[in-house]
């Protein structure tokens, strides 16, 4: 029964029911309808179908779909903007922590690599303070207390010369001079960027074996004030920086994902 009616004809019938045909199309279809009983039947079927569909009442929503502030806020409002604000800060924190970690690690490695022989030697002489790369302040202090090892260096000059706190340790020989007070990596870094400290370190009467590399190690801070061995301090610093880097990185990721 439906085989003879083509899809365009069905479309014309459908549009006819909705009064969507142009006058020309409408006239042509009505002519066909008069001549074709099957087409008339098809139109009647479509009309009933359409009427049935249109007879269905609009459903009532089974509940209200009003938005709570949480629904609105979570997905669009203030929370998103605040998260977006926190993201770059956390990201920056993570990056900075990583950079500092690398600096500290490289600095530590460099100092250890350049200084190992004197280190061991002075360690035998002066134990903790000398070994202290970081807390190395003790080195200066102890060194100052060891005149019997040969006061080759008058302490006054370096004391005044270097930041007031730094003490050029009186060291018995070149080796120990090289070794003795080793600053923390931070101190070393400072020394690197403050030429006057370098120059002042050179004023120490003792002949530094290798000024270029060592003078920064001549600086000491707060003699005896730092009870921690330097390597421990560095280790703690490294751990803290790693935690900060990873933690801030994860927090940044979380914030970004939550903002989506």
């Amino acid at each position, binding site marked *: 029964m439906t085989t003879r009616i083509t899809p365009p004809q069905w479309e014309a019938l459908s549009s006819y029911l909705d009064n*969507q045909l142009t006058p020309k199309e409408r006239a042509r279809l009505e002519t066909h309808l008069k001549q074709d009983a099957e087409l008339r039947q098809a139109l009647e*079927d479509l009309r009933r179908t359409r009427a*049935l569909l249109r007879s269905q009442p*609009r459903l009532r929503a089974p*509940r209200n*779909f009003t*938005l709570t502030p949480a629904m609105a806020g979570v997905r669009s409002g203030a929370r998103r903007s605040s998260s977006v604000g926190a993201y770059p800060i956390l990201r920056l924190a993570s990056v900075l922590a990583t950079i500092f970690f690398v600096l500290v690690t490289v600095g530590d490695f460099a100092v250890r690599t350049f200084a190992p022989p004197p280190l061991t030697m002075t360690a035998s002489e002066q134990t903790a303070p000398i070994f202290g790369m970081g807390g190395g302040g003790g080195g200066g202090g102890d060194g100052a207390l060891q005149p019997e090892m040969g006061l080759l260096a008058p302490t006054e000059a370096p004391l005044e010369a270097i930041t007031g706190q730094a003490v050029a340790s009186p060291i018995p020989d070149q080796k120990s001079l090289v070794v003795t007070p080793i600053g923390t990596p931070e101190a070393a870094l400072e020394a690197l960027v403050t030429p006057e400290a370098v120059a002042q370190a050179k004023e120490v009467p003792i002949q530094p074996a290798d000024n270029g590399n060592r003078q920064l190690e001549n600086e000491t801070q707060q003699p005896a004030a730092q009870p921690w061995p330097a390597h421990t301090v560095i280790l703690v610093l490294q751990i803290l920086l790693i935690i900060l880097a990873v933690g801030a990185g994860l927090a940044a990721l979380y914030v970004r994902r939550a903002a989506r």
Partner: protein
Amino acid sequence: MDETALIQAALQGDLDAFNRLVLAYQDMVYTQAYRMMGEQEAAEDASQDAFISAYRKLDSYRGGSFKAWLLRIVTNVCYDELRRRKRRPTTPLEPLDNDNEEIESPRWLSDPGESPEESAERSELARALQRCLDGLPPEFRAVVALVDVQGLDYTEAALAVGAPLGTVKSRLARARTRMRDCLKGVWELLPDSLRLVGESDT
């Protein structure tokens, strides 16, 4: 407050204003979702998602028929969900059972003048109707629901499905033709008013 003013207020972040729009349109949105999804729970989820999405995208509303704009959003939400189900066909739903529950709910049979027999006929007919709708491809279902259930004109329907007018016309014709074939067995259930429907209906 009129619709435009409510939309403007909602754009300024006035959630109460938006919720007044929700209350005004939720039956329409839910009906569309139900016709598309064929079951209540999915229709509720789609409706809620549609309103959340509408609130988020309110600044993309460029005037014109707000009704068509909302219907487009809910229709797209339904498309997405239907596609998702197609990809994960572990949750096929036999519409009969769910429909039973839904259709016999008091909301559906809200006509107080109906006799029990009429109610039974009506529910059976409605069930058959929804089953036939469920059998249509989603694109056809969307158009026939928009035009014949929601009463949109062709232009609004084209807006709501994001398709050209010609596409809407042909999809509607094919949907109605398929519905006609599907409903053949249930014509006797039609109430007289529909069975004898004549020229006056257009």
